[in-house]
């Protein structure tokens, strides 16, 4: 699994000739198999960070190293799940799930076999001929996860994957993710605006400031992923510490 090391990451956007900083000097790392939750005020550049880690957006300054290799473009071992637009509306569930393999030019027989077993294991086989608009939010996010995992990634990047779901669906998908993580130990970056989600899933929780994003705090969270942790006093402690850090993040600017 991948080791990620980010040093002094800077991103500036050009908007009408003016440079707008989105990320200002982020340095952090993730050990192989670690889940890093990234939390921050909305519009703080969390998605920009995901694009950079995916190799989709070249940073203005700083470096991203994955397993000691400097990242310069999209790499096949990284899977990305975006919040709302991950699925293609004009492709069926099966075609969406198979898309990564198809783009890679895998043989049709292998794509069909892999996709069938993945759709079955995610409980999506019965809706395989439906379009994304015809299935529930939870099912859509399962398709996105199935597609991401179809490429056997060693690094998983998720941008608010569960935020548009209702509370129960969100918890069940968090558990789906944890099951996968326990099996594959993917190094994972999970961007979220939910304090509870960050506290439940992240081994490390990185708190970002308002734009331009700086790292305010990195909190270690060794008991993550334990179902009993969710209802323990320590969980509430982590949450209240995060809440405080986030409040500071917004008041810094205000």
């Amino acid at each position, binding site marked *: 699994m991948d080791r990620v090391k980010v040093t002094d990451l800077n991103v500036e956007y050009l908007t009408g000739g003016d440079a707008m900083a989105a990320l200002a000097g982020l340095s952090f790392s993730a050990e192989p198999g670690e889940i890093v939750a990234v939390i921050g005020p909305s519009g703080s550049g969390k998605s920009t960070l995901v694009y950079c880690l995916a190799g989709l957006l070249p940073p203005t300054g700083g470096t991203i190293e994955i397993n000691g290799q400097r990242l310069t473009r999209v790499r096949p071992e990284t899977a990305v799940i975006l919040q709302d637009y991950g699925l293609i509306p004009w492709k069926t569930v099966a075609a969406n799930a198979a898309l990564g393999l198809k*783009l890679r030019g895998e043989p049709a027989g292998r794509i069909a076999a892999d996709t069938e077993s993945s759709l079955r294991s995610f409980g999506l086989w019965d809706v395989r001929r439906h379009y994304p608009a015809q299935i529930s939010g939870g099912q859509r996010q399962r398709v996105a996860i199935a597609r991401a995992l179809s490429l056997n990634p060693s690094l998983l990047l998720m941008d608010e994957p569960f935020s548009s779901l209702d509370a129960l669906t969100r918890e069940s998908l968090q558990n789906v993710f944890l099951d996968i993580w326990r099996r594959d130990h993917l190094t994972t970056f999970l961007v979220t605006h939910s304090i509870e989600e960050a506290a439940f899933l992240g081994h490390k929780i990185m708190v970002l400031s308002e734009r331009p994003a700086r790292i305010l705090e990195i909190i270690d969270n060794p008991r993550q992923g334990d179902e009993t942790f969710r209802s323990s006093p320590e969980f509430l402690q982590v949450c209240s510490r995060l809440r405080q850090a986030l409040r500071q993040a917004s008041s810094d600017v205000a």
Partner: protein
Amino acid sequence: MLRKVARYGLAIVVFLAVWAIGAAVLRTPALPDPWTVISQPALLFNKPMAGDFAVSLYRIVTAIALGNVLALPLGLVIGQTPSLDRYAAPLIFLTYPIPKIVFLPIFMVLLGLGDASKIVLIAVVIFFQILVTARDAARAVPEQSIMSLRSLGAGRAQIYRHVIFPASLPGVFTALRISVGTAIAVLFLAESFASQNGLGYAIINAWSGMNYPRMFAAILALAVLGVLLYEALELAERWACPWTR
């Protein structure tokens, strides 16, 4: 399907009723009553009419295909390439509102009086409708959709094929439906000048011979041509955009 036939039946009844009332009120040979026209099968179904119908159908279908083949890729690329769009957009907005019929004399000089000048004229009309629509559709594709595909390793051509082109299709079909009406009007005009065939020619020819029943038979044929095109577009859209159903 049966329901659709029934609805067309109803539409035809209403159409004929309005026509009959108009004819009864105006009492002029220039507007014969519908019975005079439809009671004479020889008026509608004859060899010259079939020939004119086929020629007009060929011209308009070829023009629609030509306009789309040229405008769709160009519009999508312009919409997806801001550096190109900066220069192309003013040019499009400058030329889009010009009534394309004014180019008919030029096309006649360049391409002669046959099919080519008429097809090119209609194709130009379609071209601009589709160009504008495709450009807007390509600009409206969410950045995230493209990023998501790139993260799966898609190259530029694959992004166009899987995201940008399909994203434009529903809009393109709407634009086509709107432009079919304009295209038929332009076809009529093009066929009414210095022409020897086509439904436009048939209408004008019957008119100048003051053969009004024959003129209205040709007008009916033009209406049938329109219905055929609309229904073909409907079928094509259902086939090409199953996710919108």
